[in-house]
């Protein structure tokens, strides 16, 4: 459903503007990779901003949430989430694998419904219980 060659979520390589979200102040950061490989960050009010930028450049990850098809339950969609944050360039394949699943009720909230989704080593977990429809 999602084109896998396309970059759904942007990744940063050499230089970029970004907003720190570690605290509500939301400093506008400028980050630039220097020749030696180190990242130069400006605009941060505290050190946490630097760490944030470094992570965003090195290995950006996002938790993935969504819904899966389910039959035999009181609803047609089951809310799910990734067991941990997924590397952003793997998110399209992760989502496609998620959309291919066809689950059957009953399902318990917290139940692992798929493991190692799209080869990421990350699982998919139900975030709602769904009773079987009598």
């Amino acid at each position, binding site marked *: 459903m999602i084109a896998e060659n396309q970059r759904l979520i942007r990744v940063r390589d050499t230089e970029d503007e970004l907003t720190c*979200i570690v*605290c509500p102040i939301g400093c506008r950061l400028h980050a630039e990779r220097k020749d030696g490989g180190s990242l130069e960050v400006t605009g941060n009010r505290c050190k946490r901003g630097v760490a944030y930028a470094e992570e965003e450049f090195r290995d950006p990850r996002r938790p993935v949430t969504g819904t899966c098809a389910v039959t035999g339950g009181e609803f047609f969609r089951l809310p799910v989430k990734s067991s941990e944050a997924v590397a952003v360039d793997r998110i399209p394949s992760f989502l496609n694998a998620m959309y*291919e699943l066809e689950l059957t009720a009953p399902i318990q909230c917290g139940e692992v419904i798929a493991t190692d989704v799209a080869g990421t080593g990350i699982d998919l977990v139900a*975030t709602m219980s769904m009773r079987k429809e009598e």
Partner: protein
Amino acid sequence: MDGEKHMDRYNVAIVGAGVSGAAVARRLSAYDIRIALVDREADVSFGTSKANSGIIHGGFHHNLRYLKAQLEIQGAGMYPQLHRELGFPYRRCGIVVAAFTNEELITAEHLYRQGVENDSAGIELCGADRIRELEPKLHQDVIGGVYAPAGGIIEPYRFVFALVENAEQNGLTVLRDFEVTDASRAGDRFALRARDGRSIDADFVVNAAGLYADEVSGIFGAEEFAISPRKGEYHLLDRRTVACPQRVVFPIPTSVSKGMLVIPTVEGTVLLGPTADPLDDKEDLTTSRDRLSEIVASAQQLVPSVSASDIITSFSGLRPTLPDGDFMIRESDVVPGLIHVAGIQSPGLTAAPAVAEYVKDLLKSAGCSLTEKTRFSSHLPAVRRTRLMDDTEIASSWDENHDAGSVVCRCETVTREEIRDAIAAGHTTIDGIKFYCRGSAGRCQGAFCIPRMLEIIAEETGVPVTEITKRGPGSELVDRTLPGTPAVRSRRDHPLRAGAGAGAPRETDVVVIGGGAAGMAAAIEVAARGFDPLIVDRERTLGGVLRQCVHNGFGIHEYDEELTGPEYAERYVAEVAEAGIPVLADTTVLGIDRTDAGFHTRLLSREGGLEIVHSRAIALAMGSRERNRGGIQIPGSRPAGVMTAGAAQRLINVEGFVPGRRAVIIGSGDIGLIMARRFKLIGADVQAVIEIQPVPSGITRNIVQCLDDFSIPLYLGHVVTAIHGGDRVTGVSVAPLENGVPRTDRGFEIDCDTVLLSVGLIPENELSRPLGVELHRQTNGPVVDSRLMTSVRGVFASGNVLHIHDLVDFVAEESRRCGRTIADYLQDRDGLEEADLVAGSNVRYVVPGRIRVGEENRVYLRSMIAQVGATVEVRRGETVIASEKQHHVQPSEMITIAVDGAPLSPGDRVEVSVR
């Protein structure tokens, strides 16, 4: 049907199922002839007859030398009987025309004399006192005018529906989506062909095609004439407005139009308008910013209490006009057997019954043989209306069919059974159903019920949801379903109430209305203190809006981890179950009445029908609803594809329905931002987010992870100046804002098929109001004291129904406290010593409005300013009582602080400010 070969034969074919065509059809259905009524639209009354003022005129506006004036008088006189027979909404409320100057008084006198000449029953020329006695809402500068008691109001589409339904009972055939594109004469018969290849033939044809009567005449090779559209724009005001007059209020007319009016509709809402602008385009149903503000201004001249904040929607209609301004009703000179009913502008509605008589006579003299049916049934059973029923009627309606207990549209209390009635009567589009039973016609304009209506239509008709339309092909509401989710739905008897056992208790300590985070948290605390709460919720599962918020970011404060909405809800559901708290899901609260000992809460559900629970206290926890298009008044057309972000969220996450492919999001509220990301994650696109303010209203994290991540442009300080599209949205116009004015010269267009509105939430206090609960002007929630008790003793409120919170953790915290104070109240431990708490500088509001002396209090406030490093200060006069440093403040983030009541005395006035 293989059209060509298999032709259906009729004596009379009527082209156009507006009020004229429908009235003719119903009149002719009294005779022993075969009649077909065809229309190009997906339902009857979808042309001019759906969008007009709905007035039965008083017979004084026109001179009798016009055909339209003669038919107006006759037609108006026929309404009382038609109303008795067909039961459509009609009220003979009378009309007043208000004059402000001596010159206008002269015109008023002229209207009066014309009315007398025309035999307008009871018409009166009034002085200032008399006219204001007749209509107290009038402006005080009114110096006199005319009163026509015979005038009245109807619901125009309901009238057309009733005419058609009754005619169908008497044998009429209705062909919808039948656009006549070709006609020929074979011998003495006409053959009519539709665009899709279907065809019928008939001895006589009535051309009642409204705006297209000229084109239909051309198709038959009959005379040439030109119908020009004249647009009328309207605002519709909520039923709650204080501006609702008792009678239709007209200004003094000008030479071209009757002017803009204030009209009390039969349904209790108020219409303002119409404008009168000549056009070329017969499909142009857009509204414009300038005209819409003109309407408000001129309505306020007549009725000063009219307020733009009561607008729930705006729309326009087109009057089909001929150059001489009169109706043209006659047999064609060129094509015998073809009867024109053309130029039916105002007063077409009033005249319709008389037009039908007139056409019947024309047909007769044209040679159509009309013998009366021996069995004509003139009466239509009344349409079910839960909102207007008393308790016995509701109960017996439910006894007949339990679907009458399942409330779908909560603003208008429309049940599943009423929607089924509409479908059974042939209305299968969202608009058709809305016109028939008012489902989605209320102040939320369908945000809650359209997803349910889609599901019901799919289940009842077997049509895939992707083919269900707002008003005909091209206006589909669902683009596709998510993988694995069926588009065809079958009727499943949804599992009924969750929780322990069925049946409402007769009595309990507290009825908690709403089973979202607030309701559950309050109930848990009440139960923990040994009292009995009962949770009632209209949804099938507890959790409220959390249920559809499948993204993560909930519970950071309370659980110190990031949960998704459903997970957060699940924890509370588990606590509720553990405490053994009874829950009535799928149950709507119709109302709350005060009694000597407490309250009677009236419940309606599919499983239990109408039930009444008595309790000593009430906890209001109904949450909020989204502000919609009416609330922010975006001009343009009214295509399918415009919805609130929360409605889209529900469609996608709960139903698995994808509403479109490319969205523009108006407003940068958090729900809109979350939906921008959701659109991307389901393989759809988001073109832009448009925010009128210079700063985003959602939190920074959402701006970053929902927009920046996906490179979605955010236009700050921009407004959407128009929405485009006929059947479905095709794009929006956007312009930067300069000094509060949109600079259209620097504007641009964005293509899209979906517009999502994320422009704020409003506490949902529909039940609180009639109970007498006082509401706060800033928060739109109840005014509460330190116990979170409202102005009505025993009624408490917490969560979004009280004021809009951005974090569910705060909702839960506030509601748990609410549960505890309810328990105190039930224990009669409520001898209270309180000080008043008010918003001081830079504070938009503070909740609660009173705090407790001698105890620790928790208060919530919103800053009016955004800045890094601020101090929240609580003072009594010059004395600082509490002061708390904040890292960062901004209007979109709620602040909560503790205030120690020890230094206070009862009656003190304490002020909170942000520095």
